[in-house]
């Protein structure tokens, strides 16, 4: 009994009731560190609202971090004139949403099979998939470019149905290579492995086949891991840069990140750049702030089992 009380009295020695110097010190430290993380982002957002010469003048003082002076959305108007914003955002949303949705199905299905079903060569194949973890994407981007350049595509549209060769300059070239993900399979796999195996056995005795177990029983209780997988994948896909830069030359298929290149051509207007950066960041930040608990728990869950 006394042993349990001991740590509490110990910490009370440091923290007498309510406010104390050490508490104030802790908060000061927390706030200073917070400033390091938040100031650059505030700077970006506030600068995007300032006219160019005020923006440059303000960086010489701490006005840089305050929404003061002559504020307007002019930079956004100019930025959107320079870049076909609706097209780019539309492309990014289309590519991200499709990849995430298809990826959830493909990866969770594979993970279910690896985790809970018995078939030959399963363990070998699973180890090979896990081993691909350590291969950085950039190292095989060029051969991948050659592969997608030779693949056929069945074009279905108002202008007819025909087969084309090469996937460059399209939406699907940004989607299909990224549907399956070793990391996502691993995420689902570790979640499924931790489920009580009795669920599966009970369903089997009730006459459910493997696919029904997956679809009717496992998926409905997989909310947390689906949230994790979705969040991580959305971040990945929204931030795609190198691949679309390589495979898409036509403006009508470009995603948002590649649009940044437009701002470093002849005349660099920092206000417009900040406006564009803010446009890319604010939606993600809002979603993050709304779902921050899920976000952080998602990331945390990737490490615990790793």
């Amino acid at each position, binding site marked *: 009994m006394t042993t349990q009380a001991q740590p509490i009295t110990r910490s009370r020695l440091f923290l007498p009731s309510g406010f104390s110097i050490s508490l104030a010190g802790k908060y000061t430290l927390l706030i200073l560190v917070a400033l390091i993380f938040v100031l650059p982002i505030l700077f970006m957002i506030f600068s995007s609202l300032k006219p160019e010469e005020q923006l440059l003048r303000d960086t010489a003082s701490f006005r840089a971090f305050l929404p003061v002076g002559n504020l307007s959305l002019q930079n956004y108007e100019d930025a959107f004139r320079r870049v076909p914003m609706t097209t780019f955002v539309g492309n990014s949303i289309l590519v991200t949403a499709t990849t995430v949705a298809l990826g959830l199905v493909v990866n969770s299905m594979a993970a279910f099979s*690896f985790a809970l079903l018995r078939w030959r060569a399963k363990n070998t194949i699973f180890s090979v998939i896990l081993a691909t973890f350590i291969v950085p994407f950039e190292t095989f981007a060029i051969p991948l470019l050659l592969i997608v350049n030779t693949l056929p595509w069945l074009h279905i549209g108002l202008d007819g149905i025909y087969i084309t060769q090469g996937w460059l300059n399209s939406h699907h070239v940004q989607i299909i290579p990224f549907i399956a993900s070793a990391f996502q399979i691993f995420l689902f796999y570790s979640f499924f492995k931790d489920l009580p195996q009795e669920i599966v056995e009970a369903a089997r005795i009730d006459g459910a086949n493997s*696919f029904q177990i997956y679809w009717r029983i496992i998926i409905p209780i997989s909310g947390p891991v689906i949230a994790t997988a979705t969040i991580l994948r959305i971040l990945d896909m929204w931030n795609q840069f190198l691949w679309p830069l390589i495979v898409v030359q036509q403006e009508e298929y470009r995603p948002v990140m590649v649009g940044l290149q437009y701002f470093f051509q002849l005349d660099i207007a920092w206000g417009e750049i900040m406006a564009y950066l803010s446009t890319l960041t604010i939606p993600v930040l809002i979603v993050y702030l709304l779902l921050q608990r899920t976000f952080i728990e998602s990331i945390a869950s990737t490490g615990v089992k790793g």
Partner: protein
Amino acid sequence: MATDTARKSVPLWSRLLAPANAPTYQRKEAIIGWLMAAPAIILIFTFLILPFFMAFGFAFTNQRLISPNPTEFVGWRNFQNLLTVRTFTLDPLLDEETGLPVLDEDGNPTYPRLRDYTRGNPDYPELDGLREWFSWNIGETRVYMLASDVLFMKALFNTTLFVLFVAPIQGGLALLLALLINQKLRGINIFRTVYFMPVVTSLIVVSFLWRFIYDGQNGMLNTILSAITFGAFQPHDWLGDPSTALWSILIMSVWQGVGFHMVIWLAGLQNIPGTLYEAASIDGAGRWQKFRFVTWPGLRSTAVFVLVVITMQAFSLYAQIQAMTRGGPLDSTQSIVFQTVIRGYEKQDIAGGSTISVVLFFFVLIITLVQRYLTREKTA
């Protein structure tokens, strides 16, 4: 008898999936299992494993994106051209009459021209085509480090430097932040949320933003430093100076990524059972002892994960370089992956780019294995 007939009636493709004498329900399970895994297996094979092995193949050819000549197998030549490093020493020129070194106007000894040895000198075939990477003097003898591909050597050096520093700095700071956040204080979640904010911001966005922060004239960093030092600090062009460019990128990368690893550490910290701390308190352990003997051992597997992840991210250093410096100034921020992309894509030298990829892969593999070995569970 019964099993025998069953075995014969089972088609070959089905026997590949499950043992031949497996009952029907097991066979069904195997077939469904295969079908469910197949889309992912096919996609990963086509878009990851196949291109990965193609890169291995290209590394032994002279493949270019568009070339009038047919692709040829060239053996290890690409690796020789990439990785050859030789030392070479030159003695000062001696005056033929006095036997003393010939001095230049400033009184320094003069040396034969390096070019005379490395450009088609029949006496030194092994030096042909090599270029100076760096040199130093031992006494009056000049020692050259020659490399077949100086640019790649610089990229290799920079990347290694980046990895060696970013892994402990980012991992260590992340642990400190996690310990800071792992306190029971009111509103602590707000701080956790704020520290994590840069992680959800794209690395490309962050890189462009920090270009402005590091700017030599109007940069925010100069402003702050000059304010803190009451104007004593002279503005510095952080990305424009070869001696600070890589460090600037490193600090920015830490700023962007540290929140991610903080959360991983935090999960590790919260997995340590509270009873261990209570037991340590009973034994009279102080704060540091609790950290040393309870927290740190409890974080072992987290530490492996964090270090491996940071190292692998650091080895693929690319986005920051592309967005901030494109390798400059004076190649001080060239990185391995940036060179892969430049050669394979911009210069359309697929063989060259692939060779670098293969080298990078082995680096990552070795580092991963070493790190796993060093941080392995020590079973007494």
